[in-house]
């Protein structure tokens, strides 16, 4: 796919570019697309021919010398064949289109997902998960329905309109004049109404969304509402929103109620006109005023055909504005999808990036400064050194920049200035994957995926043996719990899995960390919402994980902090104090005052 560089501030959407790019997907499936086009044309041609034969049959019925049966039968037979073939073809077409669109959609979803995994962590920090999900599901779905439905619809419509016009032209040229009047009226009217009604429908969905949101929000607080006896007050507020939503609904429906009957009116009006002019022409044709072959001549069958074609002809024209709208929304959906595909991936490793082998574990952060945005610096000129096997405890208030240090160590972000060295090699000169694999990381928010316990642990090192997995679970002191589960290691961890508590999930991630067995460790000590006993278990597991590794710990526990080789006290992005526990207490600064406050 071509790289799109025109992400300029131009607000106007590049419809042409998007269309070409979407077209590219369609063309890549040409072996399905070409038959689809052919089948569309054939199927429509066949169904357009139906009324011709019924008209001919009718004329044969009305023939001067009584019913001309052979002609009637042959025409009826033709009708049946045409319609049957048309139905068959249109089903085959539907199947082809489903395959076509599903292939494209599958490919697009896959591209988006694979793209996601190459994006820098920053993308996920700045884009809510809900948005990402809506691109990969809702937006791609919108494109899907346009591809599988509207594309055929457009081809069909154009063909039907043109085909009907040609046939009508052949039947009676003067009567076409009726449509010179009704078609523009119909198009203008639908366009005008849709423009007027669409914002009303948008308002309706918005109000509905708000109402649903409010209901969800309040139900989540049902117990508090009960405890405070506020049911009536909240119901009253809900009713107000309910009323708003229903008013918006009514407004939209009220206005939309005009559209369908009016279109019907225009169509019926055309038919009335066909009846009048067709009737008059037929009358003069019958009494011989218009000779057969004259432009004004029309047979009864001709009138019948004309009515049928005019109905066929009207359908697509009424749909015109809807389809246009569908295409618009498909384009904006495609634009959002393409925007993800065009995001900058994590930069490639430098040309001279080395592999990292036999890591000792000396880490040096050397005068590093960093900010997520150029305006706001989070870390200012930080330096710290950890020799192999040493522990660095990072402490400080929330928002001081503790997590940022970890982001830089893992190269989720790169420093603006300064260097981080591993075994004296600057981290930018190391292959990213190698560098990251040199660390084991245990974060506060435990991340487990939908799968078995075993799969979640072995995630730490895919080629590990079953014994190694069990050993890791043992080291994390979670083995006996796992074995007590109904399916042991094969128990599926699902979102609604009530069987595993938060603390136990934490222990499973620690087991995963044990298995990955990297020389360096990054640890974010969890504190919240685990009961005290599990907490003790987690502490023990973490302590044994730390043994023999270079550790960076965002520390909350006093014992970790006290035992650390270096304590880094971070406040407002700068290291304000640095040293061992005893040194810092002796210093009598920020750390010592905080330390003492908890005993007061």
């Amino acid at each position, binding site marked *: 796919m071509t790289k799109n560089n025109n992400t300029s501030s131009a607000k106007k959407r590049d419809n042409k570019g998007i269309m070409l790019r979407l077209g590219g997907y369609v063309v890549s499936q040409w072996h399905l697309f070409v038959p689809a086009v052919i089948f569309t044309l054939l199927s429509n041609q066949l169904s357009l021919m139906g009324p011709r034969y019924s008209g001919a049959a009718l004329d044969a019925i009305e023939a001067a010398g009584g019913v001309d049966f052979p002609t009637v039968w042959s025409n009826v037979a033709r009708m049946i064949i045409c319609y049957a073939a048309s139905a068959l073809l249109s089903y085959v077409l539907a199947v082809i289109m*489903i395959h076509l669109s599903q292939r494209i959609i599958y490919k697009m979803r896959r591209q988006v997902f694979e793209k996601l995994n190459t994006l820098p962590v920053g993308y996920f920090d700045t884009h809510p998960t809900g948005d990402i999900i809506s691109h990969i599901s809702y937006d791609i779905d919108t494109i899907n329905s346009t591809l599988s439905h509207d594309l055929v619809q457009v081809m069909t419509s154009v063909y039907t309109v043109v085909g009907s016009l040609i046939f009508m032209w052949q039947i009676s040229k003067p009567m076409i004049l009726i449509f010179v009047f009704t078609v523009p009226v119909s198009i203008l009217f639908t366009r005008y109404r849709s423009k007027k009604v669409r914002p009303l429908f948008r308002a309706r969905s918005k109000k509905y969304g708000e109402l649903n949101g409010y209901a969800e929000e309040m139900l989540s607080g049902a117990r508090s509402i009960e405890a405070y006896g506020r049911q009536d007050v909240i119901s009253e507020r809900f009713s107000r929103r309910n009323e708003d939503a229903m008013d918006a609904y009514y407004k939209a429906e009220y206005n939309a109620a005009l559209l369908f009957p009016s279109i019907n009116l225009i169509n019926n009006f055309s038919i009335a006109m066909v009846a009048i002019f067709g009737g008059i022409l037929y009358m003069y044709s019958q009494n011989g005023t218009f000779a057969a072959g004259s432009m004004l001549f029309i047979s009864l069958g001709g009138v019948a055909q004309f009515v049928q074609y005019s109905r066929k002809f009207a359908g697509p024209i009424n749909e015109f504005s809807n389809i246009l709208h569908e295409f618009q929304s498909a384009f904006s959906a495609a634009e959002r999808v393409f925007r993800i595909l065009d995001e900058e991936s994590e930069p490639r490793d430098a040309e001279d990036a080395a592999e990292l082998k036999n890591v000792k574990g000396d880490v040096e952060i050397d005068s590093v400064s960093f900010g997520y945005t150029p305006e706001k610096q989070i870390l200012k000129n930080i330096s710290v050194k950890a020799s192999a096997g040493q522990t660095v405890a990072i402490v400080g208030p929330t928002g001081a920049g503790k997590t940022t240090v970890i982001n830089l160590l893992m190269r*989720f972000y790169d420093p603006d200035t300064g260097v981080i060295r591993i075994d004296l090699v600057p981290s930018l000169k190391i292959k990213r994957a190698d560098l990251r694999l040199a660390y084991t990381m245990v974060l506060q928010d435990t991340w487990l995926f939908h799968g078995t316990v075993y799969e979640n642990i072995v995630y730490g090192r895919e080629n590990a043996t079953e014994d190694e997995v069990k050993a890791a679970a043992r080291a994390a002191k979670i083995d006996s719990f796992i074995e007590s589960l109904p399916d042991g290691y094969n128990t599926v961890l699902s979102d609604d899995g009530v069987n595993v508590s938060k603390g136990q999930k934490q222990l499973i991630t620690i087991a995963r960390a044990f298995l990955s067995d990297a020389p360096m460790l990054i640890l974010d000590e969890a504190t919240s919402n685990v009961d005290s006993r599990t907490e003790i278990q987690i502490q023990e597991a973490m302590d044994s994980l730390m043994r023999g590794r270079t550790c960076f710990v965002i520390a909350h526990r006093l014992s970790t902090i006290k035992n650390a080789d270096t304590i880094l006290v971070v406040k407002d992005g700068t290291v304000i104090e640095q040293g061992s526990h005893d040194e810092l207490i002796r210093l009598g600064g920020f750390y010592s005052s905080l330390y003492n406050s908890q005993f007061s």
Partner: protein
Amino acid sequence: MRKILSYLLPYKKRMAIGFVIKVSGTMAELFLPFILTHILENVIVTEDVGKIVLYGGLMVLCAVAACVFNIVANRMAAGVTTRFSKSMRAELFQRTLYLSSADTDRFTIPSLESRITTDTYNVHNFIGMMQRMGVRAPILLIGGISITLVMDSALALVMIATLPLIFITVYSISRKGVPLYTGVQRSVDDMVRVVREDAQGIRVIKALSKNEYENRRYDRVNRALAGQERKAGVIMGVVNPVMTLLMNLGIAAVVAVAAIRVAKGLSSPATVIAFMQYFTLISMAMMSLSRMFVMYTKCAASAGRIAEVLCTPSTYTVTECEKTDPSDSYISFDNVCFSYFGKKRNLDSVSFSVRKGGSLGIIGATGSGKSTLIKLLLRFYEPDSGTITLDGRRLDSYSREELSCRIGVALQNDFIYADTVEENIRFGRELSKEAVISAAKLAQAHDFITAAEGGYDRLLSSKGTNVSGGQRQRILIARAVAAKPDILILDDSSSALDYKTDANLRAAIAEGMQDTTLVTVAQRVSSVKGCDLIIVLDKGKVIGSGSHTQLMESCPEYREISDSQMGGAFLD
């Protein structure tokens, strides 16, 4: 369904008028092909152009009438539907809030949510459609059939023969589609889940270089989804071609039979033209009727789910009870046992008592029954055995209002909603601004509230995501104390506060609310240390009770917890 339809009763007059208008409109439409045939068959022979124009004009008139009547009827229908759902949904919501906790657990919150949103929406759509198409379709059908029967009964029968086929096709395939689309939806959920997991675990994935693994994991669900969608599409794709085919075959049959009948002088060619048009109208009507049947099954299921909530009887009863002397115990539990599902005992023979103005601390591991105890005290659930008394009266003699007036409570992970800080503290009660502010001061929240832009008028987001955990807890505590309750319950509601703020809070409560009986549930020993009575819960049983010093000596579990917490949430 009957229960739900009863909400339509107030509008029966309007609906009747709408019905009449709709019928008139549809009838007008039905006359069009009739007049057309009349022109071709009878008027043209008179060779009177004026007459042709006259009858043509009549057609236009019918078309206009059909249009106007349909618009008016549709608008009236929208009005009725709107009012219907308004009242139904409002009542459903209110009933939902009044459900007992046991019933709420049984229904589950997500299910209740979807009843209020999706299910009412389904019913709404059906009621709307019923008024619009439910009238039009049968009339087009019956009217069309009657007119054609009058015009030429033999031809009409040919046509009618195809109708059951159309109905069966559309109905059976659409029915088949429902489970297929449920399958698709499940696959979509799987796919979304993997994407969500991937986005949330991106750091771990990158740390372990698991791109390939994740791509494979995604590919599995993506493939499954594409397969499901394809299957559903291939089956549903049958409907349109078959429908169109049946309709067209019907026309062919009409033409063929007409030929025979015209030859016998039983019918006229112009009738065939009318038939073709009636046939289109009738088949369309048939199609929408079949669709309505499918929608009906969906609507009936939704209506059933709504009615289930509306018909759940209130289990909240108030018994008579003599007031006994409350002298030394204000809140007391006497041998209280309780179980959520009747299997495991969640509370097992719990007994204790607290004096008025005293303080009770409850500590224990997750799942030990701390929050259950609080829920019983709030009468969210009734104990299986044993008695709870409050101020000398059995708890079940208190009405909802009485109880909620006496108790102020801040629950664990409690409820903050999208509104101002002030309103979140007030929580819909009649409290003066001064009361709100003094509550905030007591809860140590005043300073951070006024420091932020907007102060008390600052808008909080849903679930309070735009304030920190500690700030959230203080707002909740302010809410709990604002009405100066007799009993203040803090269920793990100061866990995110730093030690200093927590201590200040406790001092402020002790000073400002001397007559209030305080119940504190906590994980941290420091939060309950100062209580008159502390009970230690383990698996629903009281394994220790007494003051801090007593427990440090007598209860090894308590000591263990206390020791492990030295250092606590340091520096956070």
